[in-house]
């Protein structure tokens, strides 16, 4: 048994190996010649020959090598036979179908159904070969030859297949398929040409290896996602309002109030996104609630709502699609330490490295890693004090939970204070007091992660596990901060709603007074609307704008802090280390502080959370998405420069996960978490009465109901009424739960079968080693493993 199996394995490798190249190259030419001759033969013969050629391409090698001598005479014999048969057949058939004008394949006219099917199958096989040609481990020359020959075959016989019924349709289908393939190829070419920053990323890769570059690749992906979101938001919401809506200054919501007008252009006011900024298309309050606007009768409120929700839908789709694509990248489940040395030997060198210093660094790190593993191998693990270790770990977790709680409380306190500040006069506040919230949040995001790292020293984990804990804690920190911020903001919103009620009542009362006065004075009931300048109208507090402004300020300050950190923490540090080294007592470059390493996980988490904030804020500030695109663009250039200029490659790299799916999973989680507040506010809170596209409605989603009732035919409204009936929704939910359960069970079953098979393969290979290969023993193996599938495999 072992010899045979080895042969099979050896064959499949040798087929792609070097000595056989010579044979298979000439072999491929043999095949090509044979096939060229085959074309003149009846399709049946060819079906057998060609399909067997396709299937046994791997086994041809031994056949050829073993029976090389025979091959030649066999070929020539068969060629002779073929020639003779061809002559006879063509004689016969040319007599039958003399009227046909088609030059080749006069014998193809008499194709029966079976032959057609067989021919069709061959054509499909050839097409599949062409599609998968680039995945085959053959030499380029052989691939080119096979490609040409497969294409010729497909071209000649596709025409033949089109005979008879539906010939025109078939030919049309074939032509369309070709056009589609060409279009797809051109589109792929175009898409690849559009991908930006390839050179930059390659430079980073060659200096720092693949793990640092993965951050920049992720950044580029985010940029692409945000470009699409920007296109959606801008094209479907902002542009129609600007082009077709009322201009600035025509209605109250679009005008700066009289009392703010003299400070509206001040830099400090604009920096806080007040003044002209607040009353521009950047924020929710600018949009008008007219049901239809402009020439095209564009339904802006509906579009606003749908785009706001659609942004989440599109992002969800893209993230899941990317996760699915990445999922077959990671290795599938080996136990820890199963292949330590083999992996270090065969998969540790990073082929992307192109810089001599980085290469030296990598050599050193690989050598160190080998030495460490050797030492681990040789020594037994010292007996650690389990209790001490456990106590230290509990202590570390307690400390970290405390600091997380502390940071959450600090944010809540600061937001509450900022609400008090907002009630005071603006001139009395210092810059710090005005921007307290953002500064505190950014500082927390800066200070806490290193704090967590220091505390985690107590825990004494393996670096990869320690990295996972660190990432988890930073995630919890950011999440806690964000949600605390949201809750505090929510309190503010409730307050504003209260104020709004009173202002609204006041406005209505004032209007009634005006009507009463007018009609009593002029004694008519036909009262013209009050002639008030838009700037003088009493305004409600517009809570949506407050939320939008809060988010925009947060993101801007976050960006500023990040850039400042890079400037000080990386650039200034590098400058100091470089130039002060000449006159310092110890070696600054080798000891403390030395050059910084690029913090991959911190940066990726920062990126993910920024995206979460964008998702949350985009509904209330449509300009936020555009701002984010600019931010990502500048980030890319700035960080690329910073990393090339100030950072050194890592000494030891531990990836957080096998594939990028860990970060994609985090992104998905953040997407859901940022969806929740937006959906909640859409469903429960009532929109402001005088600003935004939903002013005047009870709830924001009422625009959808209105559209369904008024614009769509009545039966659709009926459908919706039926669909939202609880009697229908409950069974649907139940069905989904059942489907989930079933799929889960099936997947578990597959996993178990997988594990069983793996175990049996190992057992069989070991037991086969020990046993002398004989049929009696194989049956014994069968009894032992008791699995027919395995038995048939070993045979």
């Amino acid at each position, binding site marked *: 048994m072992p010899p045979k199996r080895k042969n099979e394995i050896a064959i499949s490798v040798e087929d792609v190996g*070097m000595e056989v190249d010579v044979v298979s190259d000439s072999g491929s030419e043999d095949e090509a010649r044979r096939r060229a001759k085959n074309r003149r033969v009846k399709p049946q013969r060819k079906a057998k020959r060609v399909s067997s050629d396709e299937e046994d391409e791997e086994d041809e090698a031994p056949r050829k090598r073993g029976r090389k001598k025979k091959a030649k005479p066999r070929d020539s014999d068969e060629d002779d036979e073929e020639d003779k048969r061809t002559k006879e057949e063509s004689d016969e058939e040319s007599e039958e179908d003399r009227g046909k004008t088609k030059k080749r394949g006069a014998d193809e006219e008499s194709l029966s159904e079976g032959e057609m099917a067989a021919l069709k199958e061959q054509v499909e096989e050839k097409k599949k070969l062409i599609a998968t040609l680039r995945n085959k481990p053959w030499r380029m020359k052989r691939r080119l030859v096979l490609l040409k020959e497969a294409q010729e075959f497909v071209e000649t016989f596709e025409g033949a297949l089109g005979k008879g019924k539906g010939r025109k349709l078939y030919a049309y289908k074939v032509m369309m398929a070709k056009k589609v393939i060409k279009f797809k190829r051109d589109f792929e070419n175009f898409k690849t040409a559009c991908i930006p920053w390839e050179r930059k990323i390659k430079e980073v*890769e060659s200096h720092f290896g693949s793990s640092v570059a993965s951050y920049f690749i992720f950044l580029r992906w985010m940029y692409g996602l945000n470009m699409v979101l920007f296109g959606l938001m801008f094209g479907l919401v902002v542009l129609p309002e600007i082009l077709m809506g009322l201009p600035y200054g025509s209605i109250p919501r679009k005008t700066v109030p009289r009392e703010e007008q003299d400070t509206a252009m001040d830099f400090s006011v604009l920096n806080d996104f007040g003044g002209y900024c607040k009353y521009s298309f950047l924020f929710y309050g600018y949009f008008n609630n007219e049901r239809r606007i402009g020439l095209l009768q564009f339904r802006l409120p509906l579009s606003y709502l749908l785009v706001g929700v659609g942004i989440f839908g599109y992002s969800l789709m893209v993230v899941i699609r990317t996760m699915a694509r990445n999922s077959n990248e990671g290795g599938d489940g080996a136990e820890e330490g199963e292949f330590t040395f083999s992996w270090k030997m065969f998969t540790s060198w990073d082929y992307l490295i192109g810089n001599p210093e980085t290469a030296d660094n990598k050599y050193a790190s690989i050598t160190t890693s080998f030495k460490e593993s050797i030492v681990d191998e040789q020594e037994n693990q010292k007996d650690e004090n389990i209790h001490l270790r456990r106590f230290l770990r509990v202590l570390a977790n307690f400390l970290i939970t405390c600091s997380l709680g502390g940071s959450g409380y600090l944010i809540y306190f600061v937001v509450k204070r900022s609400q008090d500040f907002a009630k005071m006069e603006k001139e009395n506040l210092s810059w710090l007091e005005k921007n307290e919230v953002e500064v505190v949040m950014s500082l927390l995001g800066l200070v806490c992660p290193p704090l967590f790292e220091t505390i985690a020293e107590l825990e004494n984990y393996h670096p990869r596990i320690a990295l996972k804990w660190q990432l988890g804690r930073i995630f919890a920190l950011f999440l806690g901060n964000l949600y605390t911020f949201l809750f505090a903001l929510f309190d503010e919103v409730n307050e504003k709603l209260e104020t709004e009620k009173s202002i609204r009542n006041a406005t209505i009362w004032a209007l009634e007074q005006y009507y009463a006065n007018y009609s009593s004075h002029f004694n008519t009931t036909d009262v013209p609307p009050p002639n008030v300048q838009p700037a003088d109208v009493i305004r409600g507090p517009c809570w949506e704008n407050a939320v939008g402004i809060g988010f925009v300020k947060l993101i801007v300050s976050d960006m500023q802090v990040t850039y400042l950190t890079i400037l000080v923490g990386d650039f200034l540090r590098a400058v100091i280390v470089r130039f002060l080294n000449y006159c310092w007592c110890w070696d600054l470059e080798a000891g403390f502080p030395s050059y910084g390493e690029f913090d991959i996980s911190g940066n990726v988490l920062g990126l993910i959370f920024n995206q979460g904030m964008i998702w949350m804020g985009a509904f209330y500030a449509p300009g936020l998405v555009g701002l984010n695109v600019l931010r990502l663009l500048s980030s890319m250039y700035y960080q690329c420069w910073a990393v090339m200029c100030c950072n050194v490659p890592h000494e030891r790299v531990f990836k957080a996960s096998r594939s990028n799916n860990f970060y994609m999973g985090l992104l998905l989680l953040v997407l859901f978490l940022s969806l929740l507040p937006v959906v909640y506010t859409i469903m429960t809170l009532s929109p402001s009465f005088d600003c935004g596209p939903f002013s005047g409605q009870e709830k924001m989603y009422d625009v959808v109901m209105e559209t369904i009732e008024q614009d769509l035919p009545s039966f659709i409204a009926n459908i919706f009424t039926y669909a939202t009936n609880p009697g229908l929704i409950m069974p649907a939910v139940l069905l989904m739960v059942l489907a989930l359960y079933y799929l889960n069970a099936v997947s578990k079953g597959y996993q178990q079968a997988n594990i069983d098979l793996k175990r049996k393969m190992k057992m069989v290979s070991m037991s086969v080693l020990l046993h002398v290969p004989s049929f009696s023993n194989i049956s014994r193996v069968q009894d032992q493993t008791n699995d027919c599938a395995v038995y048939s495999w070993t045979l």
Partner: protein
Amino acid sequence: MGNKQTTFTDEQLEAFQDCTFFTRKEILRLHGRYRELAPHLVPLDYTNNPDIKVPLALIVTMPELKENPFRDRIVETFSEDGHGNLSFNDFVDMFSALCETSPRELKTIYAFKIYDFNRDSFICKDDMKRTLNKLTKGELTPEEVTLVCDKSIEEADLDGDSKLSFSDFENMVSKAPDFLSNFHVRI
């Protein structure tokens, strides 16, 4: 698409696009890089498929390969004569197999060929020793080298012939988390 170029005919470019993972622009750029290595040797006009081979010594000066400890083996694996002289077809083939979109199975096959120094379709202890010495630049002592090779064979060898066949190698590499991202050359 709209650019006039006389290096390749359209059929040649289409054929290359079918046989590799590259787009049209990338293939033309590759030809530029290939020509850069030996401008007097490599003609600008490839429409009649000239049979030119660039020697190993010039290919390993490329910045993408210069620092790689296995550069000689990589180029030898993809050359037809086994000595590292690459024709343009082989050159394109090499970068296509190592590019980002190349599938795991293809990369595994070529990785096996690269690490198989004596080309006997098995990675024996001697091959491993040479791999290790290239990786650590001779920093490990001979005992350490022997230990590592023994441990690797112990881990990965399933059929017990104290060398790695292709299926052993594939089984081991398919579970490695870093293989795909590390075994990748960007051109």
